[in-house]
């Protein structure tokens, strides 16, 4: 009896597993082909499309890296700055909205929250004119200022919900111990909110890392381009040098891959909470 039960349990998963494996293969096939091709010279590629071929052309990687590294560094700097600013500003603003009553609080909060309904396409053109008139075109400031303000909408809301969910006793205890408000914020609230800050950071990272349109209209200098825009340049410069092109593609996927490997859980929760801002 026990044997039959075990058998049937194992069997039950089988059809689903088969479908999932097939699906997984189809999903990863293009990626695998990109990696295979990145190790080939053009002659090898035209001669044999599908299979890897010796010798591996590791030189593709060094020549791609010589171009891609700058874009990656730029993106890390831009996204990193944006993340730090958003985390700092949104924590403070979220805390203020969650913990205090003051005149015009509702109005100010609405000024944040209604922006969720305003799509990027509506504001794209006038925002460009604004940024141009402020003299920020072709500077990192053009990207960071707009990314920070855009990201604040959702982040503040997330932080506020988190701080509201913390129990009042916690704060009372801190007040009783004679903590000033800023101490309660820095030593009690922010450490507790670390998971939510990680989520905010991840949402911001994914959004800014993949933004193509805004850099496209504001950055013209090749040396200042973030990764998404740089890859577009790179792909048209190396259009027919398939090995180098795909080596560049592989290299540029590595940063997010590392983040994914280190912080998978935050990555996934960051994605899901990003869903709130459409």
């Amino acid at each position, binding site marked *: 009896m026990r044997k039959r039960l075990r058998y049937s349990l194992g069997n039950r998963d089988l059809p689903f597993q088969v479908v999932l494996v097939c699906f997984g293969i189809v999903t990863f096939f293009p990626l695998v082909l990109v990696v295979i091709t990145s190790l080939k010279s053009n002659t090898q590629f035209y001669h044999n499309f599908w299979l890897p071929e010796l010798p591996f052309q590791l030189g593709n990687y060094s020549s791609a890296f010589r171009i891609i590294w700058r874009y990656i560094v730029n993106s890390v700097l831009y996204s990193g700055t944006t993340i730090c600013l958003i985390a700092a500003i949104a924590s403070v603003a979220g805390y203020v909205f969650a913990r205090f009553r003051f005149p015009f609080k509702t109005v100010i909060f609405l000024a944040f929250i209604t*922006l969720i309904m305003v799509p990027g396409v509506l504001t794209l053109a*006038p*925002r460009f004119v604004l940024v141009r008139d402020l003299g920020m075109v072709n500077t990192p400031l053009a990207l960071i200022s707009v990314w920070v303000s*855009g990201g604040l909408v959702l982040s503040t809301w997330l932080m506020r919900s988190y701080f509201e969910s913390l129990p009042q006793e916690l704060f009372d205890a801190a007040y009783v111990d004679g903590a000033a*408000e800023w101490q309660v914020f820095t030593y009690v609230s922010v450490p507790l909110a670390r998971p939510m800050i990680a989520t905010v950071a991840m949402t911001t990272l*994914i959004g800014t890392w993949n933004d*193509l349109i805004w850099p496209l209209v504001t950055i013209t200098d090749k040396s200042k381009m973030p990764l998404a825009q740089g890859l577009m340049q790179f792909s048209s410069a190396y259009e027919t040098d398939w090995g180098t092109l795909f080596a560049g593609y592989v290299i*540029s996927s590595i940063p997010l891959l590392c*983040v994914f490997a280190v912080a998978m859980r935050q990555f996934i929760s960051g994605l899901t909470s990003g869903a709130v801002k*459409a």
Partner: protein
Amino acid sequence: MFRSATRSSSHALGISRGPLPLRLWRAKWLYLALLVPVTLLLLFEWLPAFSALYNSLYIWNGGKVHIYVGLEHYERLLSDRTFRVALSNLVGFVIFRVVMQTVLPFFAAEMIINLRSARWSYWWKIIFVFPMVVPTILNYLIWRFIYNPQVGLLNEGLELLGLDAYTHAWLGDPLTAMWALAFVRFPWLPTLQFLIILGGLQTIPHEVHESASIDGAGFWRRLLYIDIPMTRRQITLAMILTMLFMTQRFDLFLVMTDGGPGYSTMVPALQLFQSAFSFLEFGYASAIGVVLFVGMLALTVINLRVSSGAAAD
């Protein structure tokens, strides 16, 4: 005053009572704390939004030329052939993507929660989320390679199968270009929608599924009578998200075809982009933006109404 959190903190700062000027003064630190974000939002979000509304009534090149034309831009939109084509392209595209990006992740999620092994469920979830590490722009560039007429994966695959007759310049033919774009990223699950639906399915209690199987419900019946109704909220959310993404994101079209060949892959958001940045018609571009904004708002409201109404039944 039912929320103790606000009572006690405002008590601590003593700002909940007194005449307005006094309360304003007592809250000065709070306003100071909000000064930076509020300034940023007013400058980079609210100002451009109102500027779009306002300037859609003007002929504007983004600079000195600024002439009031009233609703002329909106009238022009009504008779603009390009806009009409773009709109119908978009509608077809969005409908297709919404169906694909809901059905595909739903079935994948359904397979995954049906596994007995929790460890495998976890790993499959990770595996299907994985393509997310590839930068979005690379999705487009990789699919441009797949559709490449000379050495593309699709054509090579067809030749490998002996179907040479079906090889095609997928993006170069007005008849296939839009379909090619609709299938960009195809077997890859839309990460967000997948996670939302998976999350929904995971909240269905085990007992429900168990009692269903005791009652003799098979996979399909369970799907139809339990899983779909019980995840209606998540499915709606996934659909709305796809709809909003697809309506306003035009980087796909810009990178893959730039609206061509002809206007066969033109969409309104791309037309907006070109009006502003190729033809310097910022007023007209703003009008397109306003129309898109109103359309998206209306669709979201309708969608939410329909789904909440259906849920109430």
